[in-house]
């Protein structure tokens, strides 16, 4: 025989449990729109079987529990899916960054169009044809110098844009490193707080959610591996080296290398960081390999242009019958797309090689008298040398490609890399979306489910209240019995 008030206690534990369940449900609904929130559930267990209770003698009747226990509030999650989601985020962030950088590059070169570098190149060659046809016309010669100048400036511009991108990438690298440090620091603090609170309480769940969100954000910036869940066992590492362990944080820093680029290293010992993914890897790859490669290709175009045109211009004679000099400035330190310009006077001026800029008559359009034959060539109406220079358009350089082809290859390379980045970004976005959906399916809040649960808890609460009421009636009946 159980105690008089035993049933009331059981009913009361039911009421309390349903109320608590409703609290958790309300919390879920309140956070339904927070993408980092993981739904929570009250774990209900049967009340303890009371060995010392009124049911001391189990013979003939089965023992039963003392009501319902409302214990831990657990977060519903699947660490495996979260891990996959993090990897997808790393890949997606990496390709997204590449894609946006490549499309910026594409708009820098602005091809195909009537106004790109290709057009400037074509105009340059055409102008030589014009001079070849009318070598004694000063306006035509000035036109050539203008077109050549436009070509130089375009090469300067494109090269500068690319260098600027490298500069921007350096700034971004520094920014991302400080972001990593900041997030790592925050994770360390969270670990400290989590350790000091009892597990299962709502605040701990919120801290865990916050930590998960930070780890996700971190995985967009750089590829990380994370294992362990407890306070001290929680480890995040980059490329095999620990970034965060429990409350301890191993910070990163940036070091300027020989090329003036910001390289990422560990603050502790300066060792370089093994970066295999995420935005940071996209940044360093673009900065150290991709864009310098394009700048180099553009430099090649400029160098071959200068070498071949200068060489042929030197073989000719100018309008005044003087031997031709350099057409483009030949820098002793090497010609690049960034510095290519028309030949100007050195200081002091070199009398054997005077400036061509502002001196259209210096264009060596004619071929000098050839002593080998008795042919007298090279009057001011002779444009044979200009023809030879114009024909350089279709002449392969030492690279095996013509100058135009070298530029086309560059455009093709940029286009190809950009197309790959776009495709990869789309594909990775798709897989990221898939994992996000999957993760949200497990940890997200379903309003329908919460609504259904609400009815469930409400009904259970009503029923428990009813039981309490009937119990009360029964006690009343007992107490007020007129014996």
């Amino acid at each position, binding site marked *: 025989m159980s105690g008089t008030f035993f049933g009331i206690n059981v009913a009361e534990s039911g009421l309390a449990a349903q109320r608590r369940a409703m609290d958790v449900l309300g919390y879920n609904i309140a956070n339904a729109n927070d993408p980092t929130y993981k739904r929570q559930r009250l774990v209900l267990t049967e009340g303890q079987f009371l060995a010392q209770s009124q049911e001391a003698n189990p013979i003939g009747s089965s023992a039963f529990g003392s009501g319902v226990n409302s214990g831990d509030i657990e977060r519903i999650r699947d660490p495996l899916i979260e891990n996959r989601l993090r990897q997808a985020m790393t890949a997606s962030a990496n390709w997204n960054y590449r894609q946006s950088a490549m499309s910026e590059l594409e708009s820098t070169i602005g091809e195909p169009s009537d106004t790109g570098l290709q057009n400037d190149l*074509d105009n340059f060659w055409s102008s030589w044809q014009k001079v070849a046809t009318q070598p*004694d016309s000063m306006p035509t010669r000035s036109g050539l110098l203008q077109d050549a100048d436009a070509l130089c400036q375009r090469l300067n511009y494109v090269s500068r844009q690319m260098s600027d991108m490298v500069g921007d990438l350096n700034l971004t690298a520094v920014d991302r490193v400080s972001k990593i440090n900041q997030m790592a620091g925050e994770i360390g603090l969270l670990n400290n707080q989590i350790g000091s609170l009892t597990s299962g309480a709502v605040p701990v769940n919120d801290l865990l959610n916050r930590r998960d969100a930070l780890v996700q954000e971190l995985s967009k910036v750089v590829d990380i591996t994370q294992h362990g869940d407890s306070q001290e066992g929680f480890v995040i590492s980059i490329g095999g080296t620990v970034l965060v362990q429990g409350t301890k944080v191993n910070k990163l820093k940036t070091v300027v290398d020989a090329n003036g680029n910001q390289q990422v290293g560990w603050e502790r010992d300066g060792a370089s960081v093994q970066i295999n993914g995420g935005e940071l890897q996209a940044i360093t790859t673009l900065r150290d390999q991709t864009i310098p490669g394009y700048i180099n290709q553009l430099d090649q175009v400029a160098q071959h242009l200068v070498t071949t045109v200068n060489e042929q211009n030197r073989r000719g004679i100018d309008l005044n019958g003087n031997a031709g000099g350099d057409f483009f400035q030949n820098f002793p330190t090497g010609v690049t797309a960034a510095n290519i310009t028309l030949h100007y006077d050195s200081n002091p001026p070199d009398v054997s090689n005077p400036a061509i800029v502002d001196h259209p008559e210096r264009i060596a359009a004619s071929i000098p008298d050839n002593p080998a034959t008795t042919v007298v060539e090279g009057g001011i109406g002779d444009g044979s040398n200009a023809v030879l220079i114009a024909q350089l358009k279709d002449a392969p350089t030492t690279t095996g490609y013509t100058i135009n082809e070298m530029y086309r290859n560059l455009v093709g390379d940029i286009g190809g890399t950009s197309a790959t980045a776009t495709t990869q970004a789309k594909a990775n976005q798709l897989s990221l979306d898939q994992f996000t959906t999957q993760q*949200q399916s497990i940890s997200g*809040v379903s309003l329908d489910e919460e609504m259904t649960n609400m009815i469930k808890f409400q009904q259970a609460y009503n029923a428990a209240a009813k039981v309490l009421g009937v119990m009360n009636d029964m006690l009343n009946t007992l107490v007020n019995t007129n014996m």
Partner: protein
Amino acid sequence: MRTTLSQQIQSSLMFTDVASQKLTDAQNHAASGKRILKPSDDVPGTSRDLSLRSSINSVNQLADNVTVSKPTVDATESSLNDLAQVIGNIQLLANKAANTDYTGNATESYVTQLDGLMGQLVDIANTKFGDQYIFSGTATSTPPVQANPGPVPDPAVQPYIYAGNNGVRTTQVLSWVSLPVNIPGDKVFNFDSGAGHPAGAGTTDIFTMVKNLRDAINSKDVTSISAQLTNIGKNYDNVLTCQAQIGSWQGRMDGAQAVLSDTGDRLKQMLSDTEDIDLPQAVVDLKTQENVYQTALTITSRMLNLSLASINLTQN
């Protein structure tokens, strides 16, 4: 699979994002009329596109070369016509002079006529087209025929000298064809007379030829006058040969122009095929994407409204 609110939002966003991106793409292509807006749209296509643009530029420039050079050739041709006419007149005059009975002052009219013709010859030789002397080879700023200052050659023997050069100005009319646009004056006026010259051995330059005829007429020696006829005839033939040459260059320039305009049209067509959109296709694509986007939006707005929470759950 459990369906949750964030999951629904996530997939709705995914679908509307993809649909709106495709719609924007379709809009960009339809509005610009271009299939290739950036290299990554079609990498081999971009390369072909740039190559075609470069070729079109070349073809335009070559056509320009023809346009610029052709008038010079035409001017040379008309000068040669004039020249042939003058030499023809000289030939007539010489024939007449050779059959004249020289009594009294009959020589005077011939001499006057010859002086006039000599003046015409010098004018023709120093014809300018634009700023250029057309018969001075590549020394286009030098008058090609000038009075002989002596002492070598002797001005009494050769009244005029050639001050130009024998340079030939050429112009590229097709990528594999260069054509001359001038005939140096020494060829036309036979200054380089000699065994190698088309006019043949024993001939003199045209101006010496006129002077010799004038001397012969002045001497009233019919035999000596007749002797000049061979030289005149050979020089006349030489001018006709030059005319034929010019004529053939004109023909080839016209031919080149036709080829260039043909090639240009074909290249432009190819460029258009490479980079332009198929307009009806683009419009259909645009419409389709519009519908897809519209549908995605409609579905999203309907789906997100559906929930038990939106149904009145007030208890009884």
